């Protein structure tokens, strides 16, 4: 069982919990994060990377592209510092940073996460970041997120 205290989450509990669609399309992604694996669709036929997931490869149109594990490393493609609380769970929380991370080892597909650390830090587009898995074992249902921190130079 996870022994980390609850307050290690970047954002307060109570935000919407991510789950796979009823048809299971993104299940390998979300179950992967729980196992600390970042999985991105990769077509074994034409080698196209694809995210978000889809039932077929957009390039060669083969069905059911495979999920491939990749190292959670990337670079900041864009970012935003959020001030207005658009959810009751964020009331009185203060600013936080969301970033769009480009994954060069996966065809430059992009994923979104939070940038850990000081919410007022300067954010540099192009900066290298490494993934940090954030497990919400106490949530119902339990889930995991992929967060990011700047790579130490």
């Amino acid at each position, binding site marked *: 069982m996870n022994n980390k205290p609850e307050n290690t989450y970047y*954002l307060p509990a109570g*935000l*919407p*919990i*991510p*789950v*796979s*669609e*009823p048809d299971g399309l*993104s299940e390998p992604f*979300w179950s992967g994060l729980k196992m600390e694996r970042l999985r991105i669709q990769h077509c074994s036929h034409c080698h196209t990377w694809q*995210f*978000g997931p889809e039932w077929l490869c*957009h390039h060669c149109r083969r069905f059911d592209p495979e999920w491939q594990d990749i190292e959670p490393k990337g670079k900041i*493609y*864009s*970012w*935003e*510092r*959020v*001030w*207005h609380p*658009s*959810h*009751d*769970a*964020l009331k009185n929380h203060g*600013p*936080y940073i*969301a*970033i*769009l991370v480009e994954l060069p080892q996966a065809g430059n*597909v*992009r*994923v*979104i*996460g*939070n940038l850990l650390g000081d919410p007022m830090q300067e954010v540099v*587009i192009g900066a290298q970041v490494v993934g940090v898995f954030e497990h919400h074992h106490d949530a119902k*249902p339990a*889930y995991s*997120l992929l967060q990011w921190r700047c790579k130490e130079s």
Partner: protein
Amino acid sequence: MKVNTLRGQVAVVGIGESNYYRHGQSPDPEFKLALRAILAACEDAGINPAEIDGFASFSDDRNDASRLAAALGIRQLRSATMQWGGGGGGSCAAVANGAAAIHAGMADCVVVFRSLAQGQFGRFGQTTGIDTISGEKAYLMPYGVLAPPQRFAMRVRRFMHEHGVKQEAMRAIAMASYHHAQANPRAVMHGKPLDQERYDNARWVVEPFRLYDCCMENDGAAAIILVSQERARDFKNKAAYILGAASGSGFRAGADPHNSPDYPSANFGTLAPDLYRMAGVRPDDIGVVQSYENFTGGVLMALVEHGLVNVQDINQFFTLGNLTAPAGRLPLNTSGGNLAECYVHGLELVIEAVRQVRGTSTSQADRSDIALVIGGPMVTPASNLLLGSETVL
């Protein structure tokens, strides 16, 4: 050779709106607002509402065409079209879809409408009350990327980064909308001017959007009446003809989450050439522009993609003086639009373009025979529309 085109085939002969309110302030429910806007448009045109035989809307409007037809006592419903997609992406496409039905002989008189009471049905800026989420939003909401401001800020940030765009360019767009709203008694922000200091001191909603970079949340409805060009001269107001229209988006614009190949864009790269080709119009011919402002940053991109501004000139071009009627280089959002008139998902911008062509705007542009409307930057499908007076046909 037969040329398939809407150019000059269909005209707007009536415009109408409900009163416009801050969200939660409407005494009427959303459906009643829709009825009020439609009846106002009929009165403006001078037609009996029973003559309507088609409805066109967008953004999953809740006010069903069949219920409207029954409520209005319409004799025969012949066309009911809904443009896919959210936000204002369909604000121009709904007009095009209604016009296409008329041009194809499937309807004679189409009302294009949008009714939106955020007080009654919930504010777009609030997302509380969702337990679990799947699909595109699952990749965003757990990270606090919840409502439209957070969903579009990173797109605009990347655009600013690539082209060296300064905050002042977005400020000029907000100030132009507020400037024009001061002359427009319908505008929710009438009597509430915006100056540089007020903009600069406003709180961040999400960087790079300050409060005044974001559209309002309102209760209101708008409607326009379309008929074929053969009938257009029979009505009491000067007709505004459709010169061209386009909708859609480019390659994998819908690749979520945030995986569109042309990410820092408003999605008009493929639409603008189609629009100009149909209309037989060049960017220089356009005298006045209504460009949907979900957020000011989207307007920057949209005007660049329509060839109205060179991307390297953004910081010089976007000044209050250049954007205001009557004599600015490109009078923009001359009713106040989504920022300061009313957020009716951009249909109020179509109405304003009609007023410009008629010459009845409260901020009339010097050149208004050809008026551009741009709907829903950064969403897909997006859409656009060119209207013109009879003299340019």
